[in-house]
């Protein structure tokens, strides 16, 4: 007789059991991180007593994380034994490829911000406006993202990006004096 599953209140409804193979993969990655941090915390120097060693809490944290990873992995293995092939496969969101593409664009965006050597200034009505890598890269990348995901006309994507960028640039660079990349 199956016990009637009583829903448990959770702040994050998505959190919970994944497919056993996915939990096993996650346990593996977490165990590697824990082992790495465990080894690194042992390598840290101990200037005073062992009780005040800089690596003490990182060591305890890594060790307990390793135990948690082992429990997660062991439970995933136990679930794999009874799970059928259909419920034990990697589940990816339906739009995963579109997300990967977005991730790639974001990497390109940050590379542009980091390496594009742009620095110019224009003065309109005695107010100095700075144009840097942020303005140039954001204009190009945001227009591209809008064109791909919003699918509006290119001029509309460009106009929206330009207006938003001008607003952000003026508010942060000129009004709040916050430096931008």
């Amino acid at each position: 007789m199956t016990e009637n599953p009583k829903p448990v209140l959770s702040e994050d409804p998505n959190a919970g059991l994944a497919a056993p193979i996915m939990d096993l993969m996650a346990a593996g990655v977490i165990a590697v991180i824990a082992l790495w941090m465990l080894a690194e915390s042992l390598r840290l120097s101990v200037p005073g007593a062992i009780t005040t060693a800089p690596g003490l809490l990182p060591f305890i944290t890594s060790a307990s994380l390793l135990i948690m990873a082992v429990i997660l992995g062991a439970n995933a293995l136990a679930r794999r034994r009874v799970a059928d092939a259909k419920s034990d496969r990697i589940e990816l969101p339906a739009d995963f490829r579109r997300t990967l593409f977005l991730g790639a664009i974001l990497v390109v965006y940050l590379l542009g911000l980091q390496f594009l050597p742009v620095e110019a200034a224009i003065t309109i009505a005695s107010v100095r406006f700075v144009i840097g890598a942020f303005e140039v890269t954001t204009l190009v990348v945001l227009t591209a993202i809008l064109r791909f995901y919003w699918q509006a006309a290119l001029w509309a994507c460009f106009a929206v990006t330009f207006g938003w960028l001008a607003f952000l640039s003026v508010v942060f660079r000129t009004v709040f004096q916050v430096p931008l990349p």
Partner: protein
Amino acid sequence: MIDAFLHVLSPTLLLVSLGGVVLGIIWGALPGLSTTMAMMLLIGLSSGLSLDVALAFMLGVYNGSSFGGAVSAVLINIPGTPDSIPTMLEGYPLAKQGKGGEALGLAITASFLGNWVGILLLVACMPVILAIALNFKSWEMFLLAVIGISICGTMSSGSLPLKGWITGWLGMLAAFVGYDAIHGVARFTYDVPALYDGISYVAILIGMFGLTEVMRSLPEQGGSPLPEKIGRTTPSIGILLRYMPSAFRSGLIGMITGAIPGAGANIAAFLAYDIGRRRAKPEEKAKWGKGSYEGIVCAEVANNANMGGSILPTLTLGIPGSAPAAALMAALQMKNVVLGPTVEVDQPGLVAVIYALLIVANIMTWFAALALIKPCVKLFMLPRELLLTLIIPICVIGAYAVRNEMSDVWVMLGAAFIGYAFHIFRFPPAPVVLGVILAPLADENFRRALLLFDNKGFDFFAQQYVGHALVLIVFAVFIEGMLRERRTRKIAAEVAR
């Protein structure tokens, strides 16, 4: 307190608070944009503001977006924020009956009442908690940090606390990077200068709660439906008076859940809704699920009272009660404001200013919400893809503005990828917040406590009664979590068979 009110009633702070409230309501009303996301983005952006202005703006946004989720929940059957799902269950059927305006009016007034319950209980409980907390020394502070992270893990991950604890522990490990506070030894820096000051937790929070949400929601296809006729938005005080006992019970539930780290507005709203349905009179019970005013009152009062509750441990113990409260704490830390038992001594007047700002924001939310319902409806016509794309440069600015370092922007992107992986592998991201924020506190106090216990003998250790009680709580949290987890696995195994 009067001084604080006079200070807050200055035109600048009133205007900033109103701006925050308006932005918060609009933000909360737009599906896919959560309160947590708004607060995380504001951490970096508040770096250019003075302390008072930053507080007024953030508390305004927090207040406004706590209500804003109800607008889309009632009108288009899509919860603007996750805590407005119970409101949606009751509000949308009412909207279909042509009573959408009435339902929203009731939600506004219930939110207003919920905030008052939260604020009053906050004011009443603060001196008591502070008096207790002032007796906490290093050992107790360390244990409190551990309790905060582990309870957050339990509450975030519901049926599977292990996953919540794992993400909390990963957050702690990330916070250990950089020079340690006692000996000045560089930990896990690998001679990379950008790591000497540690990993910016603001960048982690913006990445994990801002950019991850963009990565999750932007590629999804499909838009929001447009609402039907709303009808007149009336404040519905008469209906609220009819459900006063339910409102006060829900306010108390919201406040208590808010004070528990990790248990935020979502749990508050669902718990109050569930208890409300069980305790409803038979004639009222028949309406639940088909458009119950009492259901809206329970959910809205609870998720708004939750705000006062989550601010209580944040101010008194330095342990955030929820992810938005953690963002508030992070913004204050950037201004060298350390929250905890000595907050009244270190920052005289700050707590009173926070009370005053909460009250002002609450009153403004009531008026602004009534005025903004119809313009908000027009915003539903804006494509979600457009809105989410425009958030990307705000994430970049927020991460960069803290230390003017591009490395922080890369950390934010890395955190966004990890946050997305958490989503796929069904790990909760909220405990990471507690982990990165509380790890330095735990580390410093743990070693200080061990130094204090050194050579003092067993008698000294045995006399740490508060500490022992806290150790018992730590054990209780883990044992309860493990039992819950065992139950979940057993059920999953039986279902698989």
